[in-house]
């Protein structure tokens, strides 16, 4: 891969411009073609292999400017799952760094972790050397990127900055670097936490900076929401009693008064004194409400999730399943079953919060995986704000990124992962969210396209969001550093340019520009693509949750004090909750009143019955072009926009009265 270091190889200036700072072109093959769909359609262009990604630059008419990073043609190296070279003379061969190519490939198939399948072919014989070189380069670079990513920052690899590729060339894009970008709370600063707490109207809670230096609990965020009445001094007593020192803290406050909390498991070795127990109760029973503990026992385990996802990936390969066995093969993955379980559980918790003023504590031993999923799903169901685009981003930022979900491990982006660490909990969450969007298409401010973009972005090294395992690590600026390396804060703060750009010597003089968060969508997605992210706005929800809206079957939900003193988590939540359908069905139990067709207050209760759970085909079946037909209908967003224009127009007519000089033509937007 040494060739890339030679700037002379960069060829025409266009190519050079197309690479963000810090990225090196290792090999390129102009005149390659990317296959489109199933048939013979293809586009000509250049296939690039850099130290970070494999990219295809479609041939441009001269003079036109293309984006640097194009989500649809890029694959980040760690995202490549399998690389297969084929030629008409030999069997297809899986390429790895160890086993390099022995023949001239005619076609190159790239199987991605995000379920994409990209196929390139080299149709002219004159291309043979390039084809050969680029294929090998990809195999090598992929290996290298994966290793480097793991061994700490500094080596270019996946961790170094994408520079600011949107600079200069993207001015117009940048200036409308949208409201949602700025409206997204990253929960890195005290202000974000305070602002959000205020939005929730959670009187009785405050922001505690007790973990500001990450010395209380390294994997927890800097700031925690705790009861106002509890002093930091008292709070400190609690850390030791929980696994990974992850104490109970507020996630969300329901306007009706109930609270959603999350915590790690009780530390098996801890022996809380009476004072500790008093503090604990102060946290959990803040509003003098009974608190229900919802543990993760019913939910799939990490291993379940990983296994299901592996099978799902296998299923979605072309030709993987015989025609007749599709449904049972899908069943065999158990993926949809897990999706259903999570939705059901989240629905139960959400209705508990909305129905009775009790608080719910989500408790998972590590508090870093399924708690993230459950906490955010519950909020999606219960909090209309979280269904807006910025709200959703803030939610992920708080419940996943700040809460310390170990993204790189779970997504399997690290080479050194022990296999047991990989478990795409986040992707499971995205699937659950997708199901909700399917079931409540008008309740969300974002679309399936957005979720797809987020899904794919979780594999790319161009944003900081998914590259760290907790807020503490993110602060270092060098993700992936194992926490055991105590020297890193010093060393990793700012890698000298020479190290970062070590392979090619492309320095950026001075400070490393920080990686942008994934929410800077303008980086990889065109304005057109981003327009598809949005669903008609959901900004004027009625103020949710005044009073009890549910008539629950008597006695199913009697508030229970927590059996703290026994040290054991209380019985499972489901015993006390009414089944979902009795709430969601909407047909009254009590009779008398007209049953509301749906619970008010912005609470969504999804249907988790089997026919309502669907396979996210647009995501998982992307490698199978024949599965993609017909799902490209226009979104309601277009119509909503039209509606808005018309209403504005009408309003102005009414307000002004007829203007003296009517415009020549009505501004009817094209239908």
């Amino acid at each position: 891969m040494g060739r890339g270091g030679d700037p002379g190889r960069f060829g025409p200036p266009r190519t050079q411009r197309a690479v963000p700072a810090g990225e090196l072109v290792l090999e390129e093959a102009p005149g390659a073609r990317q296959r489109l769909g199933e048939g013979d359609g293809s586009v000509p262009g250049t296939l690039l292999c850099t130290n970070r990604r494999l990219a295809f630059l479609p041939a441009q008419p001269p003079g036109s400017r293309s984006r640097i990073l194009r989500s649809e043609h890029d694959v980040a190296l760690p995202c490549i799952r399998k690389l297969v070279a084929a030629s008409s003379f030999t069997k297809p061969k899986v390429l790895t760094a160890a086993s390099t190519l022995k023949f001239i490939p005619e076609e190159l198939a790239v199987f991605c972790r995000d379920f994409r399948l990209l196929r390139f072919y080299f149709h002219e014989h004159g291309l043979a050397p390039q084809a050969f070189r680029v294929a090998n380069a990809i195999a090598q670079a992929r290996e290298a990127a994966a290793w480097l990513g793991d061994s700490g920052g500094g080596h270019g690899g996946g961790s170094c900055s994408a520079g600011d590729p949107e600079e200069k060339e993207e001015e117009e894009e940048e200036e409308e670097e949208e409201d949602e970008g700025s409206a997204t709370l990253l929960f890195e600063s005290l202000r974000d936490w305070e602002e959000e707490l205020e939005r929730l109207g959670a009187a009785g809670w405050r922001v505690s900076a007790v973990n500001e230096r990450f010395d209380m609990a390294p994997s927890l965020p800097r700031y925690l929401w705790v009861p106002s009445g509890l002093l930091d001094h008292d709070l400190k007593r609690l850390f030791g009693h929980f696994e990974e020192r992850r104490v109970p803290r507020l996630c969300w406050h329901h306007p009706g008064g109930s609270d959603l909390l999350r915590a790690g498991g009780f530390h098996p070795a801890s022996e809380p004194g009476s004072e500790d127990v008093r503090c604990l109760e102060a946290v959990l029973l803040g509003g003098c409400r009974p608190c229900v503990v919802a543990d993760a026992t019913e939910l799939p385990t990490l291993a379940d999730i990983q296994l299901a996802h592996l099978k799902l990936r296998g299923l979605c390969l072309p030709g993987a399943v015989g025609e007749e066995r599709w449904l049972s093969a899908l069943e065999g993955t158990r993926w949809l079953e897990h999706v259903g379980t999570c939705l059901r559980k989240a629905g139960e918790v959400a209705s508990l919060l909305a129905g009775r003023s009790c608080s719910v504590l989500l408790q998972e031993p590590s508090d870093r995986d399924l708690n993230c999923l459950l906490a955010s799903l519950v909020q999606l169901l219960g909090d209309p704000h979280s269904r807006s685009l910025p709200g959703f981003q803030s939610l992920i930022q708080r419940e996943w990124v700040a809460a310390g979900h170990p993204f790189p491990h779970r997504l399997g982006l690290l080479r050194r992962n022990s296999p047991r660490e990989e478990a795409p909990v986040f992707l499971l969450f995205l699937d659950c969210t997708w199901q909700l969007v399917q079931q409540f298409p008008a309740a969300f401010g974002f679309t399936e396209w957005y979720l797809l973009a987020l899904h794919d972005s979780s594999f790319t090294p161009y944003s900081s969001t998914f590259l760290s395992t907790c807020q503490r690590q993110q602060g270092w600026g060098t993700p992936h550093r194992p926490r055991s390396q105590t020297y890193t804060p010093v060393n990793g703060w700012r890698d000298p340019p020479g190290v970062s750009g070590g392979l090619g010597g492309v320095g950026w003089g001075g400070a490393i520009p920080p990686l942008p968060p994934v929410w800077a969508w303008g980086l990889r997605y065109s304005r057109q693509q981003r327009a598809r992210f949005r669903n008609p706005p959901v900004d004027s929800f009625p103020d949710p949750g005044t009073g009890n809206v549910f008539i629950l079957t008597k006695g199913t939900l009697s508030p229970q004090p927590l059996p703290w003193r026994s040290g054991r988590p209380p019985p499972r939540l489901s015993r006390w909750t009414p089944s979902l359908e009795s709430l969601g069905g909407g047909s009254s139990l009590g009779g008398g009143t007209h049953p509301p067709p749906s619970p008010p207050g912005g609470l969504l209760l999804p249907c988790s019955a089997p026919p309502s759970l669907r396979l996210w085909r647009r995501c998982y079946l992307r490698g199978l072009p024949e599965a993609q037909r017909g799902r490209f209908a226009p979104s309601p967003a277009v119509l909503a926009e039209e509606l808005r224009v018309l209403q504005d127009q009408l309003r102005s007519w009414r307000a002004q009265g007829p203007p003296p000089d009517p415009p020549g033509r009505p501004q009817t937007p094209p239908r």
Partner: protein
Amino acid sequence: MEHIRTTKVEQVKLLDRFSTSNKSLTGTLYLTATHLLFIDSSQRETWILHHHIAAVEKLPLTTSGCPLVIQCKNFRVVHFVVPRERDCHDIYNSLLQLSRTAKYEELYAFSYNPKQNESEQVKGWQLIDLAEEYKRMGVPNDNWQLSDANRDYKAAICRCSQPLSGFSARCLEDEHMLQAISKANPSNRYMYVMDTRPKLNAMANRAAGKGYENEDNYSNIRFQFVGIENIHVMRSSLQKLLEVSGTKGLSVNDFLSGLENSGWLRHIKAVLDAAVFLVKAIAVESASVLVHCSDGWDRTSQVCSLGALLLDSYYRTIKGFMVLIEKDWISFGHKFSDRCGHLDGDPKEISPVFTQFLESVWNLTEQFPRAFEYNEAFLLQIHEHVHSCQFGNFLGNCQKEREELKIKEKTYSLWPFLLDEQKKYQNPLYSPDFSPELTLLEPSTVSFNFKFWRNMYHQFDRSMHPRQSVLNLIMDMSEQNKQLEEDIKKLEAKIKQRNGQSAAVLVKEHQQSVHPTPTALKTPPCFKKEQPLIPVNDVVRTIEGSNTADNRYSEFVEEFSKAEPAVVSLEYGVARMTC
């Protein structure tokens, strides 16, 4: 009516079919000459037409009363608990009688009176005119006399039943006929003969002196089996499907494997595969195709009508679809009454052949969301009325029978009623010319493209529905847009009028723009009963029943013709959509 002994029972419970906690509604059950009606304590009504009832079953007595389970042909399943066994027994017996009609003349269609005068009735029947349709297709022409062909292609789709060739014997008449057909196609001297049966079945038929064409005995034919199973296999497949989808507390996994084991989606795929084969022969090879099965009225109807739908965009319009059903199903003698069990008869004749056709069409609409003028609600409504016996169209087993019954004098045609409510059935995404190359649809028949049709089989199970429907949403919005555009036009016209009183032309324009009444304001005439107004976006419907306008998709947009849409809309957009 002599069958009705009890007309009203109070304190009846309606159990939720999928509730694991036996949730129920309490209300009053009424029995009328045509319907079973349940009104719950919050005055919501459930109407069940007697003709829709497929089976009534009395379960063993329980402590709370006597359970009565009614299964309907439109896949509604209701589970009542009647407090006194005596009442339950009466109702059970009445329903048994009422749902099993012996004579055509006793069917609802012969008593149904939508308050139309005679000329309207006649006009209604003339709405779909097959002679005109053949003219549209360009037959008869030099090569064809009145028959079944396709306008755009020289090739033709023909249909028949199996030849009477028997074992090793030949059927000379048939050979001549086929030669005549293949000569009628100037562009390809070969023709295809499609036997839609599995080969095994066709061979078995030989023993009875029937069978299939032997390529050797015919000049220029290519013979092909396409393997659609017979009506009995289809019937039991549907039975399995319903059993799976009706299971309480079903897990995702049981559902998927149950669905697969029922084979239902596989059968739908086979039907569509055959249609795709047909279309390829016609469109790609310009070869004429003769399609047959055993009798030529079940599988043949499915394949020919789907083939036509793929080839000719006219059939993808609302009116065109009606024509297609009239042509390929009604006039070609699909035995609707036998297959749907309109009369008390041989249960072995009942088979969901037409349902499969509708489901195939639905699958196509899913694959080509912009190619069809009609939506799912249209298909569901047709399905409803194929079984309702409320209109004359589907009564009888063939044209001859219908003439003998004087259907056109004594009953009404469904089509004008559907056309009147067209708005509800329009696909808001439809765009006839968004992609000209789509005149010919080439669906993918990979098995994962076939989905369980939830809105058909769970049409009446509210808990199974997605909580909001994009379709409704889009329909509402486009309706609002239309309304706003109209308002703006009106306002502009007013301005013009004010500014240029003198200009007569403008005044004229103004008058024109003010008067058109939105068709949505018309009351659909076939509403039998006043329906409470239901908010348009209220996807979780509160009223269900089985009178005409009464499947759950029926009420959409009327609300929006009201004044002040500017104020209404966004509130709707948000407030109503939350759940």
